[in-house]
């Protein structure tokens, strides 16, 4: 019953999405206000229908309805509730439903918050969102129905891959999808602008909050995914340059570039055509990621089980949306006249440099991800492109980006001189240089981590210098507090996001100095690592809801005082007959103490202990970046929600 209801709701959603595509775009073309006005209600109806289907799938998982194939294949009655819910999207079909669910949410959000948009732009944007939804709903209904039935019902499900039975699955995919499906909105605005043939400052202002919102979610999603890998995989790795990770990094890079170029569109009416292209690219990269993960053309640890028929379908969708929008771009963009001149050395110039570097990084990541596939296809040569390549190739782009990130926000618009800006940054440079020197001395000339620390300090201090400059902290300290309160939240948000990246860079540099130790230990014996004494107290049995485990109790001491007790486990899942290792992590402000338990032999247990200095800062920094974005967003919302006199005047004219 639940299955049929969900299936029906999906079909209804398709009908509503079709109407949402056709009526408003037709209305905008003919200037019929009533057709255009239908866009909002249709988007809301579409959201309700997809939402009903989504809830139906969750319900089927929660009640363990074993007449639904997806439940049989991915769930089990003995699973904790959280993983029953999250298990709904821990597979291809369910995750596609989550995808269209978030797309429908975006449509609903544009309908709800976009009331002040010019009616033509709003109608067209909602129509484009509807068109995207149509493609993916057809894809789900035709090839990946999450409500497929099996009769008679199986006695119980086969269980979810134990690696996925983790809170990470509950939060990482929804965040990530909110991020990259969110770029569908900026994509829709860009296509609408191309159809209208007009991009102006107002367009920049409307697009920015959506670009910013998606960016916040994508930043959080990537951060969560990285942290998940860090604690789940059990050896402290946090970024692998895997094709699927790269697929989430590409929209992030393009989206970050868009975020910055849209500022130039809004303030100076320049970079308009470029920003439209970035908006198309950001969503194009999201779709490319969807294709790569689900089609089976690549080799990845994260890829879904795949099927070439689905691959062809998604490729069709990819070509239709990306190819179609690029064709529209090639047709309409040349007519958009470039305006807004500026000197190379100016805030605009800095933002152009930002875009150039971010897009070059995207080019490196994209070619590193796709070239092995194309080399195989075109030349029958099998090559691998892994972390050693990416780390080497990204570095020459990351260094100037980090240098420019502190400098750019201090540059005035239109025309700037470098010397006054550098004068305001001298103390940041001094601190960064001191950081490098100290680290070199104490880490035994480990150049990479030392310069990483310097870069991180430079970013954090640069952001502080930006705020100090805006509040006049050094010029008129007495008035600084009042000015700080008066600063727009976007200024705080931007500085915070830049500082957040600095914190992440510090964490990454710290991880370069990580140490570890592997040994077989008997209860009562100790190991020493990084100034701590790690004592194995005992190894015992524990039983969980759907697993049993061997758990080691490791007491960590420093100078005889107990710091923490770590309990790493080896879990055995009888359903699926697999073993996972559960790392135990104690996070202090400045490091992670990380313990993993291995096999036991003759009364001794293998322990792998890691001391990861500054590791938590990697994800903490990601959180700060997202927070900075969110802070700017609150500022935007106030401004967008306020009656925009310029926009109103333009619409009237």
């Amino acid at each position, binding site marked *: 019953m639940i299955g049929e209801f969900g299936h029906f709701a999906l079909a209804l959603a398709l009908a509503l999405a079709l109407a949402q595509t056709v009526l408003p775009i037709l209305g905008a073309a003919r200037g019929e206000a009533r057709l255009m006005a239908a866009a909002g209600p249709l988007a809301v109806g579409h959201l309700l229908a997809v939402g009903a289907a989504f809830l139906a799938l969750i319900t089927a998982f929660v009640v363990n309805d074993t007449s639904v194939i997806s439940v049989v294949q991915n769930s089990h009655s003995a699973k904790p509730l959280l993983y029953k819910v999250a298990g709904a999207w821990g597979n291809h079909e369910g995750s596609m439903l989550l995808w269209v669910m978030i797309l429908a949410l975006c449509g609903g959000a544009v309908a709800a918050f976009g009331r002040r948009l010019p009616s033509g732009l709003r109608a067209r944007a909602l129509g484009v969102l509807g068109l995207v939804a149509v493609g993916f709903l057809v894809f789900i209904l035709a090839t990946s129905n999450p409500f497929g039935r099996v009769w008679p019902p199986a006695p119980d499900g086969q269980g979810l891959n134990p690696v996925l039975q983790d809170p990470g699955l509950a939060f990482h995919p929804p965040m990530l999808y909110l991020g990259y499906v969110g770029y569908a909105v900026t994509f829709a605005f860009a296509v609408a602008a191309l159809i209208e043939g007009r991009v102006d400052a107002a367009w920049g202002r409307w697009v920015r909050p959506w670009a910013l919102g998606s960016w916040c979610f994508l930043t959080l999603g990537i951060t969560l995914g990285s942290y998940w890998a860090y604690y789940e995989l059990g050896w402290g790795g946090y970024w692998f340059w895997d094709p699927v990770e790269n697929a989430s990094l590409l929209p992030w890079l393009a989206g970050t570039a868009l975020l910055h170029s849209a500022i130039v569109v809004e303030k100076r009416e320049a970079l308009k055509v470029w920003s439209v292209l970035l908006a198309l690219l950001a969503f194009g990269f999201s779709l490319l990621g969807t294709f790569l993960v689900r089609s089976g053309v690549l*080799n990845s640890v994260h890829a879904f089980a795949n099927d070439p028929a689905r*691959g*062809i379908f998604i*490729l069709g969708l990819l070509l239709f949306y990306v*190819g179609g929008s690029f064709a529209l771009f*090639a047709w309409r963009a040349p007519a958009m006249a470039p305006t807004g001149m500026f000197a190379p050395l100016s805030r605009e110039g800095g933002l152009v440099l930002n875009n150039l570097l971010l897009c070059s990084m995207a080019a490196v990541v994209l070619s590193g991800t796709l070239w092995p596939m194309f080399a195989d*296809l075109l030349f029958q040569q099998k090559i691998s492109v892994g972390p050693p390549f990416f780390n080497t190739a990204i570095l020459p782009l990351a260094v100037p980006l980090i240098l420019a990130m502190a400098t750019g926000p201090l540059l005035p618009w239109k025309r700037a001189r470098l010397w006054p800006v550098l004068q305001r940054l001298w103390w940041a440079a001094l601190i960064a240089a001191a950081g490098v020197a100290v680290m070199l001395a104490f880490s035994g000339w480990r150049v990479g981590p030392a310069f990483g620390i310097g870069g991180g300090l430079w970013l954090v201090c640069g952001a502080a210098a930006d705020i100090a400059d805006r509040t006049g902290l050094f010029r008129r300290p007495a008035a600084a507090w009042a000015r700080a309160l008066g600063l727009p939240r976007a200024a705080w948000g931007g500085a915070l996001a830049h500082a957040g990246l600095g914190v992440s860079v510090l964490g990454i540099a710290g991880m370069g100095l990580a140490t570890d130790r592997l040994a077989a230990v008997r209860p009562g014996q100790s190991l020493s690592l990084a100034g701590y004494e790690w004592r194995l107290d005992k190894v015992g049995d524990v039983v969980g809801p759907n697993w049993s485990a061997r758990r080691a109790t490791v007491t960590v001491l420093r100078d005889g005082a107990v710091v923490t007790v770590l309990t790493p486990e080896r879990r055995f899942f009888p359903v699926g007959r697999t073993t996972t290792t559960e790392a135990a992590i104690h996070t202090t402000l400045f490091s992670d103490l990380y313990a993993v338990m291995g096999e036991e032999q003759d009364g001794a247990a293998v322990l792998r202990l890691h001391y990861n200095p500054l590791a938590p800062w990697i994800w903490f920094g990601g959180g700060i970046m997202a927070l900075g974005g969110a802070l700017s967003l609150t500022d935007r919302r106030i401004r967008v929600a306020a009656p925009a006199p310029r926009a109103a005047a333009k619409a009237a004219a």
Partner: protein
Amino acid sequence: MPMTSRRMLMLAPLGLAAAGGVGFYAMLRGLGTGGYDPHGVPSVLVGRTPPEFSLPPLAPSGLPPLASADLQNLEGPVLVNFWASWCVPCVVEHPQLMQLKRQGVPIYGINYKDKPEAAMEFLTRHGNPFDRLGRDEPGRVAIDWGVYGVPETYFIDRKGVIRWRWAGPITPEVLEQDVRALLRHYA
């Protein structure tokens, strides 16, 4: 910059996307036909002679052992098959190996990371297709050959040069399409 080159620049994204699309389509087609396989690793040995090795026999089988000297100056092409009793796809391919043996094609086996009793039991139950059999319990010879999983099969011509490597089971299709053609060509 003239208007036309600006127009060209704006066509570039479309061109790149189209090229990518054609490539992806070819990959998906290749996935179906076997022309494109993201998982396979080609052998560097094809066109070369096998590495030097000498393996002990599987004593209870009574088969002669295998060394690289046995793969020189052959009377006709031979197959070298890496297998193990614990390997499920090896069971799948076994009937094809037996069929080749009946037709007089010499197959030299290398028993990979296996216990002698288990290997013997496997041969007793499923039949013995091998003319020679070496035991590679540590798996080092397999690494010298660039083996990355079992079963793997190498085709060696009468001069002792490796002409073909198949990673995965010799299915009836592989037997008919690939092995037969090789046997005809290098007969």
